């Protein structure tokens, strides 16, 4: 029997989802998404979990094989009670992305309060304690992924300001004061990413120097948003330049666990790992579970090569 042609180049792990609400050692309302890193030989996820009263915090889950995870009983990072953070984190700290940087790990996260969303930045060396560096964006900016190397001697990040729902790039000398913002990509009318785009996993530096960025694209339908995942390749020397962008999504909601949940038809990634040529994408589905998808850089590359549209 001929094998059925798969519509997505990301291959879903057969035992998806890998973490569900009943797997948690405490009651929770939702599991949203996870940042991912390989830390001292262990796969470590930083998961956004919403408690029953509606606030989100970040929990660590660990695994030896990247498939079977154990979730900590206590949060790794909760909304702060200290100034100046408490005012801006009152509702949630969420959507953590982990960027290894010169031996340390930077965590960008989204701080939510009644005033809106902002990007927060913190640093950990051991995933036991975490130190906040600052709230580094204006309000209603989400996303927030830090590059793992300096660009022309400056830190760089991607972000998704509310206005226009595009992906932007900004720079900083000290991680506190940011500037030089430029637009990177915009939604493409008529496409799967017609209405909104945003950065998902932190940029991955490839062997040839290019940066691979996993992003999410949204098409608004009459029954709500349809979240899908796409890819971008950025110039090795100037990541403000897009070299290639997938014409089609690399992953779309299809399975029940992606279609059914508190937010149906939502797949959202905050973490990707590159192991030799194997590309691992940890993604949240339907705001209810964490899943794993795998592919290769070659496959993503081929998908981009067919791209006919502008950036």
């Amino acid at each position: 029997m001929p094998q059925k042609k798969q519509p997505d180049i990301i291959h879903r792990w057969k035992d998806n989802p890998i973490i569900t609400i009943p797997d948690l050692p405490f009651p929770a309302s939702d599991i949203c998404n996870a940042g991912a890193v390989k830390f001292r030989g262990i796969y470590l996820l930083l998961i956004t979990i919403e408690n029953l009263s509606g606030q989100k915090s970040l929990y660590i889950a660990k695994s030896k094989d990247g498939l079977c995870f154990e979730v900590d009983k206590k949060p790794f990072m909760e909304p702060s009670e200290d100034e100046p953070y408490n005012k801006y984190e009152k509702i949630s700290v969420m959507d953590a992305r982990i960027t290894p940087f010169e031996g340390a790990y930077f965590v960008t996260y989204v701080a939510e309060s009644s005033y809106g969303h902002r990007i927060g930045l913190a640093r950990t060396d051991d995933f036991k304690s975490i130190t906040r560096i600052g709230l580094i964006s204006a309000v209603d900016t989400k996303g927030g992924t830090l590059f793992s190397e300096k660009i022309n001697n400056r830190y760089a990040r991607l972000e998704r300001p509310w206005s226009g729902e595009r992906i932007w790039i900004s720079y900083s000398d000290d991680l506190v004061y940011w500037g030089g913002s430029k637009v990177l990509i915009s939604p493409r009318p008529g496409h799967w990413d017609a209405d909104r785009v945003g950065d998902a996993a932190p940029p991955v530096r490839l062997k040839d120097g290019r940066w691979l960025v996993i992003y999410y694209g949204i098409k608004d339908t009459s029954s709500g948003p349809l979240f899908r995942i796409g890819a971008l390749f950025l110039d090795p020397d100037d990541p403000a330049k897009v070299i290639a962008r997938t014409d089609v999504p690399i992953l779309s909601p299809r399975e029940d666990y992606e279609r059914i949940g508190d937010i149906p038809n939502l797949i959202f990634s905050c973490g990707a790992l590159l192991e030799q040529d194997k590309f691992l994408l940890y993604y949240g589905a339907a705001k209810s579970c964490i899943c794993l998808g795998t592919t290769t850089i070659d496959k993503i590359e081929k998908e981009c090569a067919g791209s006919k549209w502008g950036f």
Partner: protein
Amino acid sequence: MVKRFVDREEVLSRFKDNPIITLHDIPFRCNTVFNGAVIKKGDEYFHLLRVEAQQGYSVFALARSKDGLHFTVEDKPVMTPVRSGPFAKYETRGIEDPRITTIDGVYYVMYTAYSKYGTRIALAETDDFHQYKRIALVSEPGNKDGILFPEKINGEYVRLDRPIGKEVGSMWVSYSKNLVDWGKSELLMTPRPGMWDSFRIGASIPPIKTEYGWFEIYHGVKMTVAGPIYRIGTVLLDLEQPHKVVARCNKPVLSPQEDYERIGDVGNVVFACGAVVEDTGEIKVYYGAADTCICVATANFDNLVKATLNRDRGNS
């Protein structure tokens, strides 16, 4: 004859010959003139005007005056959206709402750069009001009403700005070491439900230092079924920590009432962009009316500051 209602509680008094600059004072063809920033240099007033071209985007023109009331507008715009370089992409739909702040003798113009990517705060400098050197785009999109404080505070440049959070426009304060990279943003104040500034607020003029704190004029918006009403209010900010409010007026100091404020491209708007405090103790507040003309209103500056301190009682 219907007797015109006059609100005697308003602290600001309109100049009798308002509006002071209209479309007819502009030597070149345009749609409207409004929202101008004013600096007094020696005995001359320099007024950087937002002029909306008939194409629909805005440019800046310069007007000069000896008395701060009667202005002569120069023949050509002094600053227009650039068409090449890094700013071009973000100014395709025009440049708007300039505010001029003097720091250490340099005139800095913060303005709104508008493009399909949204509105951003941009910064330029000038020493003669004719040549403008763009320094940087200093915010992400979705931000406007950026205004520099006239001095560094604790070693940092400080600005007011107005990002939109959860669809609500509030006033924030941001900090910088070099005027280019900005951070440490703090919420300053939010719209007040049920009041005249319930929908949206934003900074209007460069803050003025007083013994009671930084005096700031802001615009407050109330949304109605027929659209927004823009009014002018005042607030005092902590001298050392300018993201903290010392006192905020409960009543506006100026509301649209005259025909030239109620009737125009955008009716029911009074929107200040500049003010000059005279040696006599008088403050001249320059404001755009109905997005169609420019007006001036005056008050005794001390009274205006004290009215802010006394909140509602002081306004009567």
